[in-house]
C-alpha cells in the first residue's frame, strides 16, 4: 500500500489515530482519497443522481410551466400506462432493440471469428470496422436518409430498378423502424465487435490445438470451445447494448420525429413529447422513472456479476 498511514486511518485502526488511543469502531477519519474522488462525485450527484431522484418526486406530482405542483399519487403512472401512444412506443422500442441488438451480436460474433481466423490487412480492416463509431447520429441519419430517400436515394432507385421491394419509411411506420434499426446496427456494431473480438483473442490457442488433435471439426471447436468461452463477453455486450439501445432517441427523432401520427415513437421520444411538447412534466417524469427502473433491472445481472468479480479481486 503506497500511502500506508493515510490509507488505513479510516479503517483498520493502525497508524496515528489508534496511537492517539481512540476506539476502533464508529470512528471516521479523513482520508485524502475523499478529496481526489470529490470532483467526480459532485458531478455525478449534482447532474445525474439528484436530478433522477427529483424526477421520482416529480412523477407523483401534477405540474407544468407556471403551475405549482400538487401531489397526485400514482395518477401519472396510471395515465401513462393507459395511454395507447405509450404502449405503441414501448412496443416499437422493444421491437427495434430486440431485433437490432441481436443482429448486432450475430454480426459482431461473425466478424470477431473472421478476424481471429486472420484477414488480409488485418490492422487496416480493424480500423475500417471501427469507423462508424466516429460518426454522429445526426450525420448518420443524413447519410441513410439520402441513401433511402424515396425520390432520389441511390439505394431506393437501385432496389426499384432490380424490382426488389423498397423501404417506404416516410409513410409506412414499420419501414421507418427498419431504417432506424439499420442505422442503430451500423452505428453500434463497432462496440459489439470489439468486445467479442477481445474476448476471442483471450481464448488460449492451446485449447484449439488440443481440440484438433482430438479430431474435432470446425463446428465442434466452435460449439465446444469458442461458444462457451465467449458466452460471458456475449452476455456483457448484450446487456450493455440493451441498456444503451433502450435510450434510443436521436435516430428516431431525426428520421421520423415519431411520425406519421406518432406511430414510430420510441419511449425516449414519447418522454420528450410529453415533457417538452405537451409540458406535462408529471407523465414525462413517470415515463422517465419507468425507464430508470427497467434499465436498472436489465443491469442487475451485470452488476451482480461484476460485484462477484470485484470481490474476488479483493475490492
Amino acid at each position, binding site marked *: 500500500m503506497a500511502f500506508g498511514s493515510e490509507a488505513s486511518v479510516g479503517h483498520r485502526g493502525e497508524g496515528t489515530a489508534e496511537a492517539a488511543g481512540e476506539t476502533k469502531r464508529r470512528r471516521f477519519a479523513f482520508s485524502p482519497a475523499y478529496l481526489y474522488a470529490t470532483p467526480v462525485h459532485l458531478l455525478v450527484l449534482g447532474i445525474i443522481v439528484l436530478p433522477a431522484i427529483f424526477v421520482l418526486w416529480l412523477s407523483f406530482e401534477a405540474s407544468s410551466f407556471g403551475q405549482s405542483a400538487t401531489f397526485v399519487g400514482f395518477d401519472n403512472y396510471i395515465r401513462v400506462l393507459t395511454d395507447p401512444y405509450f404502449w405503441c412506443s414501448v412496443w416499437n422500442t422493444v421491437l427495434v432493440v430486440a431485433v437490432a441488438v441481436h443482429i448486432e451480436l450475430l454480426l459482431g460474433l461473425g466478424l470477431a471469428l473472421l478476424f481471429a481466423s486472420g484477414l488480409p490487412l488485418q490492422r487496416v480492416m480493424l480500423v475500417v470496422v471501427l469507423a462508424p463509431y466516429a460518426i454522429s447520429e445526426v450525420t448518420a441519419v443524413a447519410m441513410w436518409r439520402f441513401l433511402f430517400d424515396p425520390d432520389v436515394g441511390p439505394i431506393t432507385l437501385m432496389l426499384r430498378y432490380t424490382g426488389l421491394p423498397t423501404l417506404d419509411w416516410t409513410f409506412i411506420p414499420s419501414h421507418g423502424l427498419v431504417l432506424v434499426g439499420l442505422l442503430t446496427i451500423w452505428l453500434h456494431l463497432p462496440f459489439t465487435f470489439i468486445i467479442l473480438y477481445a474476448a476471442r483473442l483471450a481464448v488460449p490457442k492451446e485449447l484449439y490445438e488440443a481440440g484438433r488433435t482430438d479430431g474435432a471439426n470446425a463446428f465442434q471447436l466452435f460449439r465446444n470451445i469458442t461458444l462457451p468461452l465467449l458466452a460471458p463477453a456475449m452476455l*456483457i455486450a448484450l446487456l450493455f447494448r440493451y441498456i444503451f439501445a433502450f435510450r434510443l432517441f436521436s435516430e428516431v427523432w431525426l428520421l421520423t420525429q415519431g411520425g406519421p401520427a406518432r406511430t414510430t415513437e420510441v419511449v425516449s421520444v414519447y*418522454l420528450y413529447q410529453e415533457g417538452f411538447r405537451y409540458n406535462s412534466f408529471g407523465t414525462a417524469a413517470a415515463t422517465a422513472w419507468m425507464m430508470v427502473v427497467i434499465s436498472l433491472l436489465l443491469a442487475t445481472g451485470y452488476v451482480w456479476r461484476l460485484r462477484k468479480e470485484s470481490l474476488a479481486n479483493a475490492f
Partner: protein
Amino acid sequence: MRSRRLAIGAGKMLAVAAIVVWSLFPIGFIVLSSFKPGREIFAVPPELFFEPTLEHYASLWQRWPAFFDGLVNSLIITTGATALAVMASMLAGFAYSRYRGVRFLEGSVMFLIGSRLIPPIVVTLPLFPVVNRLGLNDTHLVLILLYATFFVSLGTLLMRTFIDQVPRELDEAAVLDGARPLTILVKIILPLVAPGMLAVAVFVVVFAWNEFLFAYIFTANHAKTAPLVLSEMISSIDGVDWGVLFAASTVQLLPVLVFVVLMNRFLVAGLTAGATKG
C-alpha cells in the same frame, strides 16, 4: 485441399469487400458527393469519376454561417468537457487505485456504475428549469458539465484499471523521498498512464463532438453545436439541400474520424477495459 484453401481465401476476400462496403460506403458516399457538381449527386449509379468542385462548400459558407459558429462551439465544448472529464477521472481513479479500505469509497464504485445506467433524457426534465433559472441555458458551460459527467464514471473506472498497473514500488520510493501524493500522481503516475488518459479522452471527444439530445434541449443560439445545425439542415422546411448538407456533414465528421483512426489503439483498449471492468 488446395481448392478448399482457395475457396476460403476467396470467401475472405468477399468478406473483406463486404465489410468495407458496409462500413465505408455511407461515409465515402457523403464525402465524395460533397465534391460533386450540381445534379451529379443524384446520378444513379453513383459516378466515381467526376470533376470535383467546391460549390457546395461555397454555398455552405454563404448560407449557413451558423454552421461555422456551431463548429467553434463544438470545439470549445469538446475541449472543455474532455479536459474536465480526464482530470476528474484521473483524480478519482487515483483515489480508488491507491487508497484501499477507506470508508464509503469502495461502496461508491457501485454508485458510479449505477449512475451510468440512468438514461440521459431522464435528467433533462429536472435540469431544464434549473438551468434556466441559473441563466445557464444556451451556454457552453452547461454542455461541458453534462458531457463530462456522463463519462466520468466510465473514466474513473478506466483510470483505476490503468493506475493499478503502475507498480506501487514507484510510489513507495517517492514517498521515501518525501514526495506528497499529488506530486506522485502528477510526476510519476501521470506519464505512465497517458494511454489511459487518451482512452478516456477518445470516449469524451467522440461523444461531445457528436452529441445531439442535450444540445437540442439546452442550447438555442449562442452555444449551438455543429450536430444541431446539421439537424436543422436535415429538417429544413423547404426541402433538404443535399449538396450543402453533404459538405457540412463532411466538415463535421472528418476531424473526429481522423482522430478515431489515429487513436484506434486507445479506443480498443478503452472499450475492452470499460466493458469488463464496469
